[in-house]
């Protein structure tokens, strides 16, 4: 038995935490890309901002797109609900709300993250400090994840946390791919050119998958990268991996509560799309169309879960 509000708080706490780490990675990848290719830098920040769904908000705040503003907006602007500081704030507020459901270790890890980032992001971050700050965000997120995995009982509390994490991760990875889908289309890309190599690397980096991709020893290219990030069930950030886990977490809730919920059908439908297809079929359908549909349905699943488990009144 758990309060609906508590389930919602856990779900959102984990979504926000996942988002903070994802944003840090986007900034890092964007930053590298812009450094390597001066002429493409504006375009790169536009794609970082759109991946974070923050481009409209940014344009309201700033007249031109540039590196300094973009990084500041993504990291610490409180008017940006997705800035790292905003989401860490929101994660901690949710953690405070559900504190009775968290182990001391998890609460302290979240609180510590908030305290350190509030400190690190109190002022505009200089170029010199940026790598350290991004590293700090990544480390803190690992600390929270470690506390969650190491100390939490595997019950409904844990399942709601994981569901939040995987929904957010799906959204993030699908957006990274969608924003860059044009680079991944075989017809448009100039295979082997250095531009594309950088773009591909950026995509992998944004999804923290550059090392694991290298281990595959596969010919790099749009097809292989898309396949890896969408379908490879071994990669913890692939869409297929996220949905296998979402389905499992929802099944755990079903077993614990003894009740099948409508959200499970939605989840099963998306899971099937990710496990019974191959990359050729996806490219055939159109990568952009495939991803847009997935992002929409992923949002729909979130809404259905909120309703099924009475997150709100």
């Amino acid at each position, binding site marked *: *038995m758990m309060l609906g509000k508590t389930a919602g708080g856990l779900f959102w706490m984990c979504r926000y935490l996942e988002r903070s780490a994802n944003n840090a990675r986007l900034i890092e990848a964007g930053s590298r890309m812009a450094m390597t290719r001066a002429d493409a830098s504006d375009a790169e920040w536009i794609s970082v901002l759109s991946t974070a769904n923050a481009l409209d908000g940014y344009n309201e705040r700033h007249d031109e797109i540039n590196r300094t503003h973009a990084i500041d907006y993504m990291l610490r602007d409180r008017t940006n609900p997705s800035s790292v500081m905003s989401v860490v704030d929101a994660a901690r507020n949710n953690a405070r*709300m559900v504190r009775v459901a968290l182990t001391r270790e998890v609460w302290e890890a979240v609180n510590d993250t908030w305290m350190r980032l509030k400190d690190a992001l109190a002022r505009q971050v200089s170029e010199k400090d940026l790598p350290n700050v991004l590293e700090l965000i990544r480390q803190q997120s690992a600390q929270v994840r470690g506390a969650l995995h190491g100390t939490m009982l595997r019950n409904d509390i844990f399942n709601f946390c994981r569901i939040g994490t995987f929904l957010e991760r799906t959204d993030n990875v699908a957006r990274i791919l969608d924003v860059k889908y044009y680079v991944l289309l075989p017809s448009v890309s100039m295979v082997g050119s250095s531009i594309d190599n950088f773009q591909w690397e950026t995509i992998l980096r944004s999804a923290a998958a550059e090392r694991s991709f290298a281990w595959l020893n596969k010919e790099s290219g749009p097809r292989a990268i898309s396949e890896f990030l969408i379908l490879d069930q071994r990669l913890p950030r692939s869409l297929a991996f996220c949905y296998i886990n979402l389905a499992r977490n929802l099944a755990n809730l079903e077993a614990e509560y003894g009740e099948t919920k409508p959200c499970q059908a939605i989840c099963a439908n998306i899971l099937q799309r990710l496990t019974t297809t191959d990359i050729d079929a996806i490219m055939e359908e159109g990568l952009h169309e495939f991803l847009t549909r997935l992002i929409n349905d992923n949002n729909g699943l979130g809404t259905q879960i909120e309703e099924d488990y009475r997150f709100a*009144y």
Partner: protein
Amino acid sequence: MPFDEMFGHGEHPRQPYQTYSDWFQSENSRSLRKKAKEAERAFRRTGITFNVYGREEANERLIPFDIVPHILSNREWQKLSEGIEQRVLALNAFLHDIYHRQEILKAGRIPREMISQNAAFEPKMIGVDPPGGIYTHIVGTDIVRTGEDEFYVLEDNARTPSGVSYMLENRETMFEMFPDLFIRHKVCPVSTYPKRLRRSLAACAPSACTDKPVVAVLTPGIHNSAYFEHSFLADEMGAELVEGHDLRVVNGRVAMRTTQGYMPVDVLYRRVDDAYLDPLNFNPDSVLGVPGIMDIYRAGGITIANAPGTGIADDKAIYSYMPDIVEFYTGEKAKLPNVPTWRCSDPDSLAYVLDNLEDLVVKEVHGSGGYGMLVGPAASRKEVAAFRAKLQAKPDGYIAQPTLALSTVPIFTNQGLAPRHVDLRPFVLVSPNGVDITPGGLTRVALKKGSLVVNSSQGGGTKDTWVLES
């Protein structure tokens, strides 16, 4: 010279502090300073913070913690707890009486208008029988001391006393910092409080409860100044922490919205004021409460702790009648005296208070937290003059008390030990099974030299409170 609890009026430590004092002498002050800093970091990490109303930037402030414990001998504690028990039982009897037959009014021991005209009197409670006959499930009795054997009750916090999380966390911090101290002393444990609280609340379950009582803590939410404590207690008790919008009336019970539907709550430990408890019965604008909960309460469907309407018992004007109240209901003289109190509603008292404002402490009858009070000896002429005008405009809104020479306990400063004024709030649980007082409490300490205001909202700090086992 006020009485110092460590050194009395002399240079040698009093008996309860003997062992501590020896230990302290043998410690290196630099390493103690380091420990004090560590304590603060530990508090920040666990997130014990205290939101101060009306100060946006200092939204989450720590209450400073002092590493020198406030120590009471077992004999001193026995004396205190007997007095507190007597007083708390009298408070409950008083509340039952004024919401039923009002014998004390008929006997002329309290003027009728003290009740009928009192904003804290709750007409909706007239004739209501709270489950188990208990009104004040949790009381925080504020005690001050002026000498070796001179203890006074300063306030009866009978609504929703706060601070118990500090009693518990301060002890944990002391354990972590100075484990060796606990080998040298036998200190009564306080960590049993949450279990005792749960047991005490469960013993007051309503007639509608047929199974193991479901206990929930009702909080106004994460922005409330005491939110940490609400979540801490819920956590330690194994109770749910709910907000108003998690609850609604379903099939004649108050039920909470869970992931599996609505589930009835038996005992609600509410940390929300009466006025916000039920928008249908009290303040209609409240979003913190539960519409209709009072109707369920009256029908015996839920226990509300503390009961609505208990505020009348810790009203500062009623306070002045406490010696009479204790005698009327227990047939005994009060074991713990009141601080002498002038009711400014009385013209003679008012005249005296106005003549002696510079020497008195004047408090708002309905105020709390050290707001809206005047500490005569510490106030500037301008402040005294301003307060005089307020007092003359609304005399019945105030009481006055002499400035007691409150006892001091040393705090640890960069210059070594320095005496500071303290008060003590033990936490008292009341159920049909009796009165249960956890040996210890919240010691609040004024950090400024000479200051008598110990409230955390006014820059006070806290100490661990030790009751020695022998």
